[in-house]
């Protein structure tokens, strides 16, 4: 299976391309390929692991093989032209399938930041992971403090990720499930309660406890059911988006300004290292999961495809859930490999639609970047520039995914573009446009 997963285990957001298919044999590839007709075959592959034709068309169909990129390409010469067309179409479709949730998440965050002032109020309260304050007298001291904060935060994240990988290696599944359930509980109930309270205060409406209790109870309980058990796909995706947005808002509020930017940069580098280097924790996680032939673990992964299991007694650890742990910080990014329990089940045939998976941590950090641009940047120019930058980065990452067909970190390219665009727009483009407007000079 050309699976690019995104183990978001705590932190490394990866992009996972799920191309699981029940059939392992090479022969089936033919069937799948020829059956790659949009209407019938549910297994719409997005990228194929064929390396031969890679150079021409980056996006290929995923083959249902689990062997990975080295599976021999069984494309017929004459079918190639058709398939290239098909694959490109699916490639674009999958990119759009990821654009929509990322955009929605960012829209929710930006809308909240612009309307509810709570999340942009200066507060001296900081997370314990960023103990150094930024209210210092000199610029140098402030910079030093933000770098120190970043170091602490990244070390916490590294430790948590390694801890998670160790737990996974030693098969302490119950512990991991419990941890994930706790963190999603906190997110779905506590953070949304706070959020609702702030929205009501902003719009100055009266609200009573019984109604709020019913609302939060319903929201949280249905969220837990959808994410951790079975529920309609749309609802599950919506909950994951909302939960990522909530987490991003918490980060935007409680991370000191300069530290936030340095942390964004550092986490992209960490992501790169953790996913691509041979000894990186996330890579080990993916490889262990692949060896054991099971889904990495129910964590936060947003999946754009559908999963269906036939005759399977699927375990309950289904849906990706937000990896936010009890602490706001631990983040999550969990794009953990999804949940397709079907992978672990050996019973009947399991078929899964191929789709692309993106870790929730990616959603969160993208939204943090755009949210901070909206909160502290000049005006809409900066926000929109960052938004476009992130989408371009995502596109490029998906392109790379099609080429390399293995788990890739989704943060580095997008965050790099986002940071560049933010700083250049804020410090160069913005004043330029303002000056032009002031002098009524139109170009």
């Amino acid at each position, binding site marked *: 299976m050309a699976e690019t997963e995104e183990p978001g285990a705590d932190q490394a957001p990866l992009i996972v391309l799920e191309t699981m298919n029940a059939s392992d044999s090479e022969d089936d590839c033919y069937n799948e390929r020829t059956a790659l007709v949009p209407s019938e075959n549910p297994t719409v592959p997005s990228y194929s692991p064929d390396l031969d034709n890679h150079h021409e068309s980056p996006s290929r169909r995923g083959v249902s093989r689990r062997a990975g990129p080295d599976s021999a390409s069984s494309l017929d010469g004459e079918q190639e032209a058709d398939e290239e067309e098909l694959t490109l179409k699916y490639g674009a479709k999958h990119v759009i399938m990821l654009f929509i949730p990322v955009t929605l998440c960012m829209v929710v965050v930006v809308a909240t930041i612009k309307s509810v002032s709570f999340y942009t109020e200066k507060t001296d309260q900081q997370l314990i992971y960023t103990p150094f304050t930024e209210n210092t007298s000199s610029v140098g001291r402030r910079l030093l403090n933000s770098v120190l904060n970043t170091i602490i935060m990244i070390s916490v994240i590294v430790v948590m990720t390694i801890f998670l990988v160790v737990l996974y290696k030693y098969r302490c599944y119950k512990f991991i499930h419990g941890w994930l359930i706790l963190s999603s509980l906190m997110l779905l109930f506590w953070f949304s309660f706070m959020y609702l309270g702030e929205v009501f205060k902003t719009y100055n*409406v009266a*609200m009573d406890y019984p109604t709020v209790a019913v609302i939060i109870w319903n929201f949280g309980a249905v969220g837990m059911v959808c994410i951790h058990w*079975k*529920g309609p796909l749309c609802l*599950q995706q919506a909950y994951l988006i909302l939960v990522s947005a909530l987490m991003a808002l918490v980060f935007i509020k409680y991370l000191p300004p300069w530290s936030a930017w340095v942390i964004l940069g550092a986490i992209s580098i960490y992501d790169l290292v953790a996913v691509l280097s041979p000894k990186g924790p996330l890579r080990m996680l993916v490889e262990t999961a692949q060896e054991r032939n099971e889904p990495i673990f129910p964590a936060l992964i947003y999946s754009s495809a559908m999963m269906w299991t036939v005759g399977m007694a699927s375990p309950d650890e289904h849906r990706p859930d937000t990896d936010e742990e009890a602490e706001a910080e631990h983040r999550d990014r969990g794009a953990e490999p999804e949940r397709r329990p079907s992978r672990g089940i050996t019973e009947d045939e399991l078929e899964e639609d191929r789709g692309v998976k993106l870790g929730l941590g990616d959603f969160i950090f993208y939204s943090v970047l755009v949210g901070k641009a909206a909160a502290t940047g000049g005006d809409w120019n900066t926000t929109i520039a960052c938004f476009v930058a992130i989408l371009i980065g995502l596109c490029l990452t998906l392109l790379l995914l099609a080429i390399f067909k293995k788990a890739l970190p989704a943060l580095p390219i997008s965050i790099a573009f986002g940071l560049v665009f933010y700083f250049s727009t804020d410090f160069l483009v913005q004043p330029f446009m303002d000056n032009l407007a002031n002098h009524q000079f139109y170009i």
Partner: protein
Amino acid sequence: MNLERLPNEEKLNLCRKYYLGGFALLPFLWLVNVVWFFKEVYFKPSFTEQMQMKTYVQRSALGVLLWAVILTAWITVFQQYRAEWGEVGDYLSFTIPLGIP
């Protein structure tokens, strides 16, 4: 979770679990039940479990309606009379609007 690939008994099972779960003060769960299984129950050719699923969906819809009525009534009453209730009103309030009406 895609319903199309599930066998009928599992769909019935899911429908029933959602129905039973809604009794824990979860009208939203009932709503999800109705919306999700609506097509299965009304627009598909009949299958053995369809009758049972239909009853679950109908009762869930009834439950949603009932809850909607109760909640609307309570919210209306609260918004109208909150100021007049004085202390009890404040005690019940989660957020109190500022300023002079």
